[in-house]
């Protein structure tokens, strides 16, 4: 009955898998916020992705279609947000919140006949002898395809944002949309693309929950993960690699709580349940405390309305 009873290897690999939904959603939101848009509808896009992915994988039996449906559904819902905020100039905060409520309601409606059904198993890649290696096999070669895809996506996003011209344009629009507009960049089009990308990521994150982690569809199954993703973007101070760290932290604490109980260590579960949120608050205080770094880190035009003046 002590810490030794928790196998760190197994704990790590479970934590990695458990952190994928929040990782994907936060990564998508990061790109959206980098373009200067605040979309609070992450939870709504996730759950729509979850229900559509589930329905697709159940009806077609194909994991590929499940993944595709998750991405498309999340992206479409995000596009609604994009058109409302970018073309019709509605308030981003209010529209984002509405998107979450709408997503939760719509998913409950279309998911009704699918509650309590078991989906086909999602395949895992077989790495042959690599997977049989003593420590490394457990650490790196025991996941399903989406785990690898998610980490690959972090690398790609980081590279595109920081090392390519497209990323530079996106960031410049996020920092100062008027200046970017004056330089001739199409602010609205770039932002719409970022919003749809963010929606696709959130949708896939939701799909991961319904198709792989649980796996089944239930109403409201994202249970606040979308909100954690929003906090995570700030926690990561808008840096893609730090999102991984944050996702592990959030996923890890929940699992640690269950593990500690199972091995009989007496800590009130409530303390561990609130731990990730306390850590986020502390991180925010630390970041903003060190001179005015928070305001330097956050994209300059974040959440501000862009109105073309020509």
């Amino acid at each position, binding site marked *: *009955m002590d810490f030794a*009873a*928790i*196998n760190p290897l*197994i*704990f790590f690999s*479970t934590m990695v898998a*458990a952190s994928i939904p929040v990782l994907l959603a936060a990564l998508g939101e990061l790109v959206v916020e980098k373009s200067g848009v605040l979309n609070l509808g992450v939870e709504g896009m996730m759950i729509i992705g979850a229900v559509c992915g589930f329905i697709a994988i159940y009806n077609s039996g194909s994991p590929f279609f499940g993944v595709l449906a998750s991405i498309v559904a999340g992206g479409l819902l995000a596009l609604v947000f994009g058109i409302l905020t970018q073309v019709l100039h509605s308030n981003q905060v209010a529209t984002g919140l509405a998107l979450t409520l709408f997503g939760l309601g719509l998913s409950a409606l279309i998911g*009704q006949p699918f*509650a*309590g059904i*078991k989906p086909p*198993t999602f395949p895992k890649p077989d790495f042959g002898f690599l997977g049989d290696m003593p420590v490394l096999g457990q650490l790196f070669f025991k996941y399903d395809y989406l785990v690898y895809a998610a980490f690959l996506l972090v690398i790609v996003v980081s590279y595109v944002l920081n090392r390519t011209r497209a990323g530079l344009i996106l960031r410049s629009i996020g920092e100062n949309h008027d200046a970017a507009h004056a330089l001739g960049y199409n602010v609205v089009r770039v932002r719409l693309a970022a919003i749809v990308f963010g929606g696709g990521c959130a949708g896939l994150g939701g799909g991961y*929950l319904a198709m792989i*982690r*649980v*796996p*089944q569809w*239930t*109403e*409201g*199954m994202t*249970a606040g993960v979308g909100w954690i993703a929003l906090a995570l973007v700030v926690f990561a101070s808008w840096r893609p690699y730090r999102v991984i760290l944050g996702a592990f932290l959030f996923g890890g604490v*929940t*699992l640690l709580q*269950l*593990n500690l*109980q*199972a*091995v*009989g260590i*007496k800590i*009130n*579960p409530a303390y561990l*349940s609130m731990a990730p949120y306390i850590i986020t608050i502390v991180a925010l205080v630390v970041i903003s405390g060190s001179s005015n770094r928070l305001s330097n880190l956050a994209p300059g035009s974040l959440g501000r309305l862009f109105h073309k003046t020509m």
Partner: protein
Amino acid sequence: MTSKTFKGFAILASLILTFGLAQAEPKKVGFIYVGPVGDFGWSYEHDQGRLAVEEAFGDQVETSYVESVPEGADAERVLTQMALAGNELIFTTSFGYMDPTINVAAKFPDVKFEHATGYKRADNVSTYSARFYEGRAVIGHIAGKMTKTNQIGYIASFPIPEVIRGINSAYIHAKKANPDVEFKIVWVFTWFDPAKEADAAQTLIEQGVDVIMQHTDSTAPMTIAEEKGIFAFGQASDMMEFGPTARLSSIIDNWAPYYVARTQALVDGAWESVDTWDGISTGMVEIGEFSDRIPENVRADAQAMSDAISNGSYHPFTGPINRQDGSAWLGDGEIADDGTLLGMNFYVEGISGSIPN
């Protein structure tokens, strides 16, 4: 047409209308569920009971339900709406609806309420529950015989007497079947959160557990058990399709006879506030079919225990039983009284860990 004759017609028409409606008006019976009816667990079984009422009474009774209602303020609002909508009998099917039920019942003295698993009653509030611990005893015995690692996982919801009683009953009988057995208990603080329940099951399996029992409502733990190739038990409903090889047996809540009987009482005008706590003997608690993977003799023992509980010759809480701290609770041959069982807030001797507050 003069205004006088018109008035006469109007009165006549409204009389006919009222009379006619009163003739055809079915009794309205409402149900409120804590999870979705498609959870294939707790709420699903309550809804099966509702469907049985529809079946039994046909046009005489009209039922309706509201699902996934959180315990607390929302429940009170929904119950008020149901009472205003003309329901004459309302089944509130979760422990956490207790106070909302009592509050709303006080405001609508003519509406009858039936609250599941609670202990607060009023002139228009009955309580009913099932002796799930009887079923837990039977599956506890099977779990003790089937575990190879001697580690049994238990996914618990909230630290209320109902859940603690289940843990104790399962533990006592698993221990009798296999003295080396240990329980790993994880509290998830939810009745229904598939992701969290799945995580809990996963964690327990990583900790070396090879049989899982659950006191939560979703089928997620069964799904994980099937995937990982260990054993589990259906909870509230049979859950066979979620773990065709993992499922050993199940505790099935069969509310249908009770719901039909209470609705009959309403129709007859004989409804009174009562307190019902039935078990295997009346069929409110059913033991699901035993899996072929359980050895013949274990199946026979489990069946014998179920029969003995049913005919009253055996009570799952029969002494000697000590409390967790070693102090004596029940002497040799002593049987626990319902009062202690209903308020049970302690583990029996041998269970490690403490009950969270």
